[in-house]
């Protein structure tokens, strides 16, 4: 048993820049054997960068990492793993078509005959032993089934079991519960408890208060790439934590409100909207949500990850199956069956995942901007290139897209400029209702504020905006009203006056908003 008072892992003065943007400033962090150390902070606080440094994905950082007292620098994920640092990312990395037993030993297969022949019996034996050690209830028949047949929770445990083969001293879990049920979360916690007794140090990243206070021994909070505070669970109550996470100044952020929106016509009505999960055994993603958005209004959808806000926006954009409930656009009934139809009715959706559902990386900035509005630039099927080019140039200038030429590939732009170009794409369609899903994810501070400015400009003449965000400062800066979702249900609604990040956060975590918070 290692000495529990000495840290297994010690980070001192870690700094990291991407180009001109400094994302981590002089961060200190340490982890003792057998403890769970929670790393908390808002999106963009620098948590994921820190994890990537520990996982060996980024290796050009400043500062020093010590493992068992000796300085190390992980130059690749494989190097980190050799040193006994295991990382479970949010996206699972199992090969779905291979059996669980094979997945568990991928790259470390039991072999004989100079390493050429697989030894199936030894392999299965090892897999069984690995599962038993972690208390997983899987028979040999289960282990022989493809990983893809199992629910996410089991895959998650397999992923952990896989990470723990070998001599693991440090385990990083990046928001491990975002895709799990309540019962599944309990099992994960039991597993973590079991690892603690084995002396494994666990770094646990989470947004969820209840989880943090159940599992943490110590808590460190990052904000804007700096370590704001670190304390034992007992000496660091939720109120302190929330304050550390959002920063005091954000609670009274200056907002510019649209005037007279209460008398403006209703642009979008949603009544009792339900969005089922693709797996019918799972609970609905959105459960009976009703609200309206008026012309000229910015309405925020707040909530923790997995609260259903993205699914709600996709349903409004005709991208979800089995939706029930009624929707209306400016008084007319509305039930889109595809994004194409939604666009024709005057909606636009800026999706959260730029890479997967936003950018077309193979074509130019100009063509990305005009993609959704192409019917406007064509006559009889032929494109009017000069009109198209003019429109792209105008939108790029209005949004402040910085690029050498509009003909260059969009994948060569920075994240902020890519996001502005995608906003330009939707602005060009002239939407009546603009849906935004995490509009500033992965965008630097400067571009963020430019985007906020544009959104404020657009709502003034009567565009309605519905914006899902997990960033409190963003919701407070932009929204006239904030709807808070918790597990797919509308948990609270706040007008801009008197709303604070604390109130939103408490409602998003599922506490009753009218009752006094336990730590007030």
């Amino acid at each position, binding site marked *: 048993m290692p000495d529990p008072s000495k840290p297994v892992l010690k980070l001192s003065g870690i700094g990291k820049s991407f180009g001109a943007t400094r994302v981590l400033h002089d961060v200190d962090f340490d982890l003792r054997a057998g403890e769970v150390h929670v790393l908390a902070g808002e999106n963009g606080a620098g948590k994921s960068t820190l994890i990537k440094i520990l996982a060996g994905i980024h290796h050009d950082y400043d500062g020093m990492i010590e493992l068992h007292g000796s300085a190390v620098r992980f130059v690749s994920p494989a190097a980190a793993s050799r040193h006994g640092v295991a990382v479970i990312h949010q996206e699972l990395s199992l090969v779905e078509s291979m059996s669980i037993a094979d997945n568990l030993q991928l790259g470390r297969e039991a072999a004989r005959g100079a390493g050429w022949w697989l030894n199936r019996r030894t392999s299965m034996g090892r897999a069984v032993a690995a599962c038993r050690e972690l208390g997983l209830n899987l028979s040999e028949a289960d282990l022989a089934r493809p990983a893809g047949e199992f629910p996410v929770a089991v895959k998650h445990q397999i992923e952990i079991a896989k990470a723990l083969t070998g001599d693991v001293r440090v385990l990083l879990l990046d928001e491990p519960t975002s895709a799990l049920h309540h019962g599944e979360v309990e099992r994960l916690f039991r597993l973590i408890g079991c690892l603690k007794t084995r002396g494994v140090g666990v770094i646990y990243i989470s947004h969820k208060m209840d989880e943090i206070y159940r599992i943490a021994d110590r808590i460190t909070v990052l904000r804007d790439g700096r370590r704001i505070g670190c304390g034992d669970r007992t000496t660091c109550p939720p109120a302190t934590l929330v304050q550390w996470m959002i920063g005091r100044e954000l609670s009274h952020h200056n907002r510019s409100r649209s005037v007279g929106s209460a008398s403006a016509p209703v642009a979008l009505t949603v009544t009792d909207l339900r969005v089922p999960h693709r797996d019918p055994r799972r609970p609905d993603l959105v459960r009976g949500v009703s609200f309206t958005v008026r012309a000229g209004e910015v309405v925020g959808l707040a909530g923790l990850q997995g609260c259903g806000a993205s699914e709600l926006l996709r349903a409004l954009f005709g991208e979800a199956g089995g939706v029930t409930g009624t929707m209306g656009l400016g008084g007319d009934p509305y039930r889109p069956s595809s994004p*194409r139809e939604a666009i024709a009715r005057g909606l636009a959706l800026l999706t959260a995942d730029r890479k997967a*559902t*936003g950018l*077309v990386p*193979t074509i130019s900035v100009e063509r990305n901007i005009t993609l959704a509005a*192409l019917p406007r630039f064509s006559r009889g099927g*032929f*494109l009017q290139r000069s009109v198209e080019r003019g429109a792209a140039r105008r939108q790029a200038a209005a949004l402040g897209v910085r690029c050498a030429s509009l003909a260059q590939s969009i994948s060569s732009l920075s994240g902020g400029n890519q996001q502005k170009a995608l906003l330009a794409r939707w602005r060009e369609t002239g939407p009546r209702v603009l849906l935004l899903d995490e509009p500033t994810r992965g965008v630097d501070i400067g571009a963020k504020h430019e985007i906020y400015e544009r959104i404020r400009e657009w709502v003034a003449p009567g565009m309605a905006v519905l914006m899902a965000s997990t960033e409190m400062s963003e919701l407070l800066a932009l929204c006239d009203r904030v709807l808070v979702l918790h597990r797919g249900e509308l948990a609270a609604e706040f007008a801009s006056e008197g709303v604070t990040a604390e109130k939103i956060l408490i409602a998003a975590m599922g506490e009753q908003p009218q009752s006094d918070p336990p730590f007030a």
Partner: protein
Amino acid sequence: MKPPGWLSVPWMRAFLALLLVLAVGAVWHADGAFFRWNTHRDMLRQVAVPGILACGMTLVIITGGIDLAVGSILGLCAVTFALLTIHCGWPAIVALPAVVLLGAAGGATSGTLVGRLRVQPFIATLALMVFARGLAKFIAGGQKISAAVLKPDGTFAYVALPPVFQHLDARLFGGNVAAVTLVFLGCVAVSWVVLTQLRYGRYLFATGGNEEAARYSGVPVTHARLLAYGLSGAFAAVAGICQAVQEQQGDPEAGVAYELTAIAIAVIGGNSLAGGRGAIGFTLLGALTIGYLEKILSINAVAQSSRLMLTGVIIVAAVLLQRRQLN
């Protein structure tokens, strides 16, 4: 070694491959044969059929797919065209559009399988490739369809070839240009219009570049795929007609493995099989490169065996060259 700046322009790289092949021809000119116009005229005639297939292939590749059925559709359409014009006596003005429609219908079948039923392009077009070849043999009754018509008593009667055969296989401009070369250039022009001038052309690029993002932007990705595969089928029909007039018969075995030549032409010119980018100009340059390569090897009387091996090596070299410069 850092490549010079001009090599970062894709067009320059495509030109470079062609220039290298031309330089080889200038050195091994087979007693001056390479410098005679007739050699170039024949090359342009021979490359027309695979070049036409490559036009359709380019459209499909840009959507991120592949069309393995073009060689078989060529065979099917060659047989059908010969049958309709020689045996059934249809006038060319009716037979030509009918055969092109047949090819388009074949392509549209692939397009529906890929776009609507979400079958992988390789599998869908592989199935159609096998089916169309079988259909060609079925229609032809195991025979080549030519001016020699088998009579019930087992003897052959010879009928006159319809004039469309002469017209399409003619040499124009004082015998200096083959008509099929102009047909090929026509197909290049049609593809150019589709890819650069039409809204649907843009949809092909968007579908191949990021289908999800395209769908979220209201791009009709299913229809875009249908158009690409449909046009590829129609081009294959045009190639089949050209093949039939050159051979003066409809051979159900025509076009075997031509889909591979078409892919080679598209790729050697610089189109990416990953989809989302490309241009018909690359395909034109690729057709010239492959065409000259074949021609230079044949005028130097290089054996067929060595020719095939050399072609394989050169395709890999050209593609590696393209990629090296991209980074």
